[in-house]
C-alpha cells in the first residue's frame, strides 16, 4: 500500500489535472529521468502507467501528475491526501540517455510537461544549454511553468487559444528556433506530449536532421516485457515501449500505427466510464 501524502488539483475542469505526492522510498531511491511506474488502485483495478514527475529523496516520495481521461484516472482523481494506492511497480523503462550534447530543446505539450521536467533537469545538470517550450490548450491548464523555468536557460510558452504566451503551437516556436529570426544551432530535441504533437515536432526537425527523442504512451499491462501489448514499430522493427523505451528516436517511430493501437479499447473505455458513473449515482 502506498500513501498519498499530498494532493494538488491543477484543474477541476473536464478533464481534470491532478498531482499526488506518494510515499515510495525504494522507488524514489532508484528513479532516473524518463522512468515511469505502473499502478493499480484496488483489487478490481486496471494497471496504468504514469511517469514519475519528481522525486524527493529525503522524504522518500515520488510525484505523479495525471489527466482524468478515463475510468482509472477518474477514480484516481477522487482519492484524497491520506488515502492509499494498492500497487505501484517501478521505476520502469529505460532511463533517458543524458550527456552533454550542447543545446537541447525540451518540448512539452499538455500534461507531457510533467514527464519532461526530470529530463530537462538532468540535461541541465549535465551542462547543456536547455531551452524549453511548453504549451497548453489554454492558460488555466498550463502546468509546471515555475519548475520548467527554474531548470531551463530559456522558457518559451504557447497556448492554442492565445490566452497566455505565444498564440499558437509548440511547433511554431520550434520552427523559429531552427530557421526563424531567433535561429540557433540545436543538438537535440526532446518532445513529450500528445502523439500528434510529437509527430508534428518530428516532422519539423526531420528535414534539418536534428536528432529528436520522443516518449511514447502505448497501452501497457505488465511493464516488464512479458505481454507485448505496448509494442510499436521503430525503424521497421517491433519494439516494446515498457522495456526498450519509453523513449525512441522520433524519426523512426511509426506514429500512425501507434495512434491506431492506442484506440483499441475506445468502446470498452466508454463502457467503463458509463458503468462507473451509473454506479456512482446509485
Amino acid at each position, binding site marked *: 500500500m502506498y500513501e498519498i501524502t499530498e494532493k494538488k488539483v491543477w484543474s477541476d475542469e473536464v478533464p481534470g489535472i491532478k498531482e499526488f505526492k506518494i510515499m515510495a522510498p525504494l522507488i524514489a531511491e532508484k528513479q532516473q529521468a524518463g522512468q515511469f511506474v505502473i499502478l493499480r488502485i484496488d483489487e478490481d483495478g486496471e*494497471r496504468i502507467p504514469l511517469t514519475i514527475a519528481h522525486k524527493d529523496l529525503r522524504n522518500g516520495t515520488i510525484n505523479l501528475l495525471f489527466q482524468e481521461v478515463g475510468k482509472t484516472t477518474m477514480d484516481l482523481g477522487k482519492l484524497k491526501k491520506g488515502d492509499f494506492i494498492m500497487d505501484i511497480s517501478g521505476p520502469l523503462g529505460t532511463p533517458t540517455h543524458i550527456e552533454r550534447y550542447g543545446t537541447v530543446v525540451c518540448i512539452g505539450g499538455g500534461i507531457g510537461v510533467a514527464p519532461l521536467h526530470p529530463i530537462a533537469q538532468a540535461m541541465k545538470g549535465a551542462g547543456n544549454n536547455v531551452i524549453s517550450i511548453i504549451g497548453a490548450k489554454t492558460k488555466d491548464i498550463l502546468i509546471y511553468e515555475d519548475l520548467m523555468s527554474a531548470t531551463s536557460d530559456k522558457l518559451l510558452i504557447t497556448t492554442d487559444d492565445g490566452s497566455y504566451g505565444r498564440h499558437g503551437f509548440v511547433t511554431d516556436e520550434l520552427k523559429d528556433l531552427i530557421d526563424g529570426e531567433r535561429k540557433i544551432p540545436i543538438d537535440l530535441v526532446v518532445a513529450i506530449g500528445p502523439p500528434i504533437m510529437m509527430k508534428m515536432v518530428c516532422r519539423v526537425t526531420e528535414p534539418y536532421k536534428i536528432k529528436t527523442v520522443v516518449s511514447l504512451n502505448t497501452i501497457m499491462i505488465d511493464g516488464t516485457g512479458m505481454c507485448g501489448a505496448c509494442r510499436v514499430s521503430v525503424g521497421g522493427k517491433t519494439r516494446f515501449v515498457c522495456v526498450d523505451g519509453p523513449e525512441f528516436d522520433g524519426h523512426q517511430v511509426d506514429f500512425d500505427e501507434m495512434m491506431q*493501437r492506442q484506440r483499441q479499447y475506445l468502446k*470498452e473505455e466508454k463502457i467503463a466510464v458509463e458503468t462507473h458513473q451509473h454506479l456512482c449515482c446509485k
Partner: protein
Amino acid sequence: MTSPKEEGKKPEKKEKRPKIPRQPMPLQDPAVRARNFDEVPYGYTEELAKLESSRCIQCKKPFCIDGCPVRINIPLFIKKIYEGNILEAAQIMKKDNFLPAICGRVCPQEDQCELVCILGKKEEPVAIGRLERYAADYEAEHGKFEMPEMPPKTGRKVAIVGSGPGGLTCAGELIKMGHDATVFEALHKAGGVLVYGIPEFRLPKAIVQREVDYLAKLGVEFKMNFVVGRIRTVDELMEKDGYDAVFLANGAGLPVFMNIPGENLNGVYSANEYLTRSNLMKAYKFPEYDTPIKRWKNVSVIGGGNVAMDSVRTALRLGADNAYIIYRRSHNEMPARKEEIEHAEEEGVQFRMLTNPTRIIGDKDGWVRAIECIKMELGEPDESGRRRPVPIKGSEFEIETNAVVMAIGSGSNPLIASSTTELKVNKWGNIIVDSENTGRTSKKGVFAGGDIVTGAATVILAMGAGRNVAAAINEYLAYKAIGW
C-alpha cells in the same frame, strides 16, 4: 478395509482381479462449460476415488515413481486413498511435491507417471493425477493447518526472484531449513504462470492463493510489484540488502511473434497478453473489473501447445462463434496435453491442421479482417524426430477472423541477465547452470532454475528445480567459505 495387496503378502498368482476400467472424472457439460469460466472437471467423488485406487496393483518395483520428476511415493499414497486415509495420502504426496493440487490438475501425467504405469501395458494406466488431485483437494477442505515443526533460525537469508512454481517451492524448502526466504515478484499477485497464464477453468486461482498463504504462514516474505533489475539489481540484493544467496526463477516470459506482415494490427495479441488480461486482470468479468478484453466473434490461435489450447478455449468462453487452432504440423504432433485437446474438441474448437499463417490482413481502420495461411505437408523428420512441415506452393487461402493470438512459444526475458554482473546466458538467453541438480550459475551465490534455465517446460520440472536448488543453497550457506 484392507488394500488389495497388503504389503509383504504374496499376490496370489491366478487370482482373477475383476477388470475395473479407468474411472473418468465427471465433467461439466461441454456446451455449458464452453461459455463459463468454472473449472471443467468436478473431480472424483469418494466412490470413484476408491474404485480407481483399487486398480493399482501395488507393484514391488513401481515404475510410476520413476516417471514422476519429483518421485512421489505413488503406490503408497494410492494405498492410503484406498484405505480411506485421505489426509495421510496427502501428507505422503506433500513430502515430495509441495503443490499436489496443482500438479494433479496440470501435470502432463500421460507422459510421466502414467506413461510408465504397468497397467498401461495391457489396459489403461491408473489415473494417478486424478487421485493426486482428489487427495489434495480433500486435504484442503478437511485438513487443519498445523504449523510444522520449524528448525531454529540459521540467520541466513535468501532472495528468490519470481513467484512461479519454481520460486514458491524453493522458498518453502528454505524456510523449513531455517533460512529466511524473501520472494520478489514483478506482478501484483504471486504464482507466476499459474496465475497469469493458466486459466481459471483449468486451475482455479483460489488453489494457488491457498499455497501462497500457506508459505506466508510459514514465514516466507513476499515483496510484490518488485521488478528485479529495475528497483534492485541482483548485485544490490546481495551487496546492499545482505542476501546471502539468490535463486533466479523468473520464468520464460517473453512473447514470441512470427515476424509476418500485419502483426501490429489491432486485434493481434501475444498469448501472454490475451491470457494475462483474462486471468490475472480478470478481464472476463469486465466491466465489474476495469481491464477490458475484446469479445470477438472469430478468433484464430496460432500454435498447438497448452498455451494455444488455453487461449482458444478462453476465446470460446468470451463468446466466440468460431475459435480456430491453426497449427503447421498434424494433429498427432500437437504438444498440448491430450486431455486438453480433447476438451477443446468437445467444446467446439475448430482445428486447422497442416496450416501455417503467412500474413495478417487488416481493414481500412487497422483492424484484423482475415489471416492468410498456406497448406503444409509433412516431409522428412527434423532434429526433433517429428516430420518437418513444408509449405505446398500456391495453396494460400484466407480465414475470416477478427483476432489472432500468437501462441508459438516464449523466450527468456533479458532484464535480469542484462542487469546482473558475471551472469552467463546461452544464445537463447537461458541462464547457464553447472547442473540442474544444483542450479549454480556463473556468479557466486546465485542459483537459477525452472523455465529460465530450461526454456518453457512444465510446472513439475520447475518445482523439481526449486527443490534441488534449495538443497544446493542450503549446502552453500553451510560451507560458504569453500570455493564456488
